[in-house]
């Protein structure tokens, strides 16, 4: 049996995005195997001048129309405006897109202002997702698959300068850890 074709069937018929785990379980294969096949499927769509695309976010996969046909499909579905974004909301979304998963505190540190209302608004509109991290006892935020679709990207890492803006946080964290280490050893 062709794993790619089976994955395509399930993604097509599902009413929601599917996680790697759900797909692997349904097909009774290892997650790694399913992941490789999904990557191949996504590449096939790109290569073969397909009408479809396979996108991924937060380990969730979804079949969508291909970005090449955005105007055609939009006219066909006669879709309407899906709301407006204020500059503060756009900024918060940008930071969450590049830095996610990110805590509210970190987001507020970068924006220099309380972001409670913006976060609630973005959650309600389904542009971001909230996940409680047990180890850190804090909520962390990532952009949603819907937001990735609005951008016409297949993966949020395709954003311009993604690795540069994303990694900055890791470097900072590493620095902070180093400083804490030095400070504590100085106190000994």
């Amino acid at each position, binding site marked *: 049996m062709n794993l790619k074709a089976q994955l395509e069937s399930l993604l*097509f*018929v599902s*009413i929601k995005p599917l996680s790697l785990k759900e797909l692997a379980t349904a097909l009774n294969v290892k997650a790694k195997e399913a992941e490789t096949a999904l990557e191949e499927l996504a590449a096939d769509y790109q290569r073969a001048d397909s009408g479809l*695309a396979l*996108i991924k976010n937060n380990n969730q996969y*979804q*079949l*969508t*129309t*291909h*970005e090449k046909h*955005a*105007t055609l*499909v*939009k006219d066909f*579905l006669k*879709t*309407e*405006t*899906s*709301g*407006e*974004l*204020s*500059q*503060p909301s*756009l*900024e918060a*979304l*940008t*930071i969450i*897109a*590049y830095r996610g998963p990110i805590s509210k505190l970190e987001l507020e*540190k*970068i*924006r*220099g*202002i*309380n972001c*409670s209302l913006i976060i609630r608004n973005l959650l309600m509109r389904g542009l971001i997702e909230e996940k409680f991290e047990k180890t850190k006892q804090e909520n962390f935020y990532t952009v949603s698959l819907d937001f*990735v*679709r*609005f*951008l*016409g*990207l297949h993966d949020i890492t395709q*954003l*311009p*300068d993604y690795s540069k*803006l994303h990694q*900055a946080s890791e470097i900072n964290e590493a620095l902070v850890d180093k400083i804490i280490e030095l400070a504590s050893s100085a106190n000994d």
Partner: protein
Amino acid sequence: MIEFTQEKFSGPLGLLLSLIESEEMDITEINLAKIADEYVLYIRSLADINPEELADFLVVAAKLLFIKSKALLPYLYADSEEDDSGDLEKQLRMYKEFVEASQKIKTIIENDNFLFVPPLVKSRRISSNLPAFSPPPKVTAPVLHEQFKKILAMLVKRTEQKLPEQNLEPKMNIEEKIALIRELLLNKIKINFSKLLATAENKTEMIVSFLAVLELAKQRELIFDQDELFSEIHISST
């Protein structure tokens, strides 16, 4: 299909960035020191600022005034290399990177390359002969009752959490604080800065006190003295 609304600036860093950029300056500590007064003037002119946000604007004001005082009186700070005045500069640079990235994201959205998914498609499933009704076995009327009461309790909790935020509203603005300090100095020769801060009920009021004292010093209505670095600051009228 997402529309964008325009604002003059978003938040304190947005304001700071727009001030710096309108002067065509780079983000450096020296330039931040130059812009400090303009920033303070601007936030004092903001009539309808959300009290929750005012605190954040004031935090940046305090940082700016610290940077400015450092630029004016460098000898006071010569020994303290660990001060964090460089933080605001770094913070603003990072913020600027994200503002620029947000403009790119805006362009991407405006390119209208939306990827569409079908609305709920029942017809696709008809061939699979799925039951039209598939209830969750354990859900009963009492379960729904309990669940609804939990939701109500959660809503009450959410409202309560919001109340303290509203109390953040500053009890006093800078003008009132200035008037109070003047009055205090009429009755006393000296006041201790720490005592003044101790009367503040929250962070916002503390910063308001700090700004008021700086404002009075600027208008040469009062002077500071201090026995040594980091010791008590005494305030007296000129």
